[in-house]
């Protein structure tokens, strides 16, 4: 059976060149960068080279890059690290209502610790209104966190204006760039955020490693205490092979971003166009244009998402419903709900996220099995039948 992986927003395979670059650090170059002997020095050089590569993604100084265990840790560090370090200034934090769980739950924790959290609403596309941000910044606001690209819909938040407002008011701005990294530019010169989170496994690097950009001078305390690793901002023996992999992955996605975006745009546009021709009553969630080219979030009226995933999986096609992290939950996606998409439609949504190794045959194959699946499930559905009466 043909296998088609269309869940790149959940995770990506490690690119063979990335893995190749990592392997020596499991083998002969296995040293601990804290060691002062030759083994340690070799590891240390690899660490700093990777830091330089990641700095290029943000167009920042390597000294502003800190390695973590992933996007979740980076988000936690940004939110809680800034919150703890600036609590004398204030305890108010503003986030959007479509943030990733790593941001949402970090804020929930802080709420229990006496912080005040404001959740900015979004419109039908998932956009935050800059006016809402402006209105909600208070004297004790210490941090604004609004994600760059949403993981469920692929919609690009136009954060330039939001960043400008926060800057004007002297409030730190963090963006979760896990889904934008390598897909759209994040130049912290032009887009002057103070903190940004990324994760390797979303860009053909390994799981369990990520990074955070922290603008020089930002007041933040570490979450992981211990040795003097990462200039005392993140303790723990550095995951050298993983970090090398992240550096390599960043370099790779930066190098051919345009080419791959074109490829992805072609795949998703073809897919959506043909899908509309063969399956009726579908709806694209998120903004039709302001989106990364790899991801489509589509609701299939009258059928529940998981039953579509299962059916496609039996045909070898891997897709997701909402965020991979939230699978197993019962409520409809908080992202789609915040966009005021009605529950039955939200529960009918499927995320197709294409990647660099997908080809047009994958589109064709998926389209050769999907219409039948939808038809079968709709024939069982008490609500699709109803709506046709």
């Amino acid at each position, binding site marked *: 059976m043909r296998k088609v992986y269309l869940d790149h927003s959940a995770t990506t395979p490690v690119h063979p060149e990335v893995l190749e670059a990592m392997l020596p650090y499991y083998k002969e170059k296995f040293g601990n960068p804290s060691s002062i002997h030759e083994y340690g020095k070799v590891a240390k050089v690899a660490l700093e080279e990777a830091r330089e590569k990641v700095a290029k993604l943000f167009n920042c100084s390597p000294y502003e890059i800190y390695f973590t265990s992933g996007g979740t840790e980076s988000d936690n560090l940004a939110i809680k690290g800034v919150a703890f370090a600036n609590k004398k200034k204030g305890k108010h934090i503003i986030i959007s209502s479509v943030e990733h769980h790593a941001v949402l739950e970090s804020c929930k924790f802080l709420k229990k610790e006496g912080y005040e959290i404001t959740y900015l609403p979004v419109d039908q596309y998932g956009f935050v209104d800059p006016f809402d941000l402006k209105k909600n910044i208070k004297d004790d606001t210490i941090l604004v966190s609004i994600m760059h690209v949403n993981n469920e819909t692929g919609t690009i938040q136009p954060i330039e204006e939001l960043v400008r407002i926060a800057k004007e008011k002297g409030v730190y701005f963090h963006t979760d760039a896990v889904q934008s990294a390598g897909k759209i530019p994040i130049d912290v010169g032009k887009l002057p955020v103070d903190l940004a989170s990324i994760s390797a496994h979303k860009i053909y690097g390994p799981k369990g490693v990520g990074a955070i950009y922290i603008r020089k001078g930002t007041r933040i305390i570490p979450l992981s205490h211990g040795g003097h690793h990462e200039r005392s901002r993140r303790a723990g023996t550095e995951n050298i092979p993983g970090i090398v992999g992240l550096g390599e992955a960043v370099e790779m996605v930066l190098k051919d971003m345009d080419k791959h975006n074109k490829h992805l745009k072609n795949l998703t546009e073809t897919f959506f166009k043909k899908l509309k021709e063969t399956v009726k009553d579908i709806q694209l969630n998120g903004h039709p244009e302001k989106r990364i080219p790899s991801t489509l979030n589509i609701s299939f009226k*009258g*059928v*529940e*998402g*998981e*039953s579509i995933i*299962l059916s496609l999986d*039996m045909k070898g096609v891997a897709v997701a419903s909402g965020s991979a992290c939230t*699978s*197993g939950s*019962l*409520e*409809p996606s908080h992202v789609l709900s915040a966009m005021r998409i*009605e*529950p*039955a439609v939200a*529960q009918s949504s499927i995320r197709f996220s294409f990647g660099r190794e997908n080809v047009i045959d994958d589109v064709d194959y998926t389209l050769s099995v999907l219409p039948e699946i939808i038809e079968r499930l709709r*024939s*069982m*559905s*008490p*609500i*699709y*039948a109803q709506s046709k009466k």
Partner: protein
Amino acid sequence: MSYSDKVIEHFTNPRNVGEIENPDGVGEVGNPVCGDIMKLFIKVENDHIVDVKFKTFGCGAAIATSSMITELVKNKTLEEAEKISRKTVADALDGLPKNKLHCSNLAADALHKAIEDYKKRKKSNA
């Protein structure tokens, strides 16, 4: 979160899908917020469920439990059918993932509602 072979089998080949015209009882449960809506139709003769059909909007477990319960009740007496519990359905499917147990509740609930509906109709017809 992994389904048993039996769940997958019932999901892939669900028994008794559809609606019964002029049913003797209908049970509808669930709501779109939690992602599952189930409608169960029964035909009753001599206190026996002689026909049963369902329509379900829901996850794999919801569809499989719907299918399974129709198999379990077909040709059973109402008394026997009423004894079918949430657990009966889950067991018959070789278990369900923990976070999906609520789905087996749905199927049993729909059945009991359909029987209730039948009894109510009978009463008001009497």
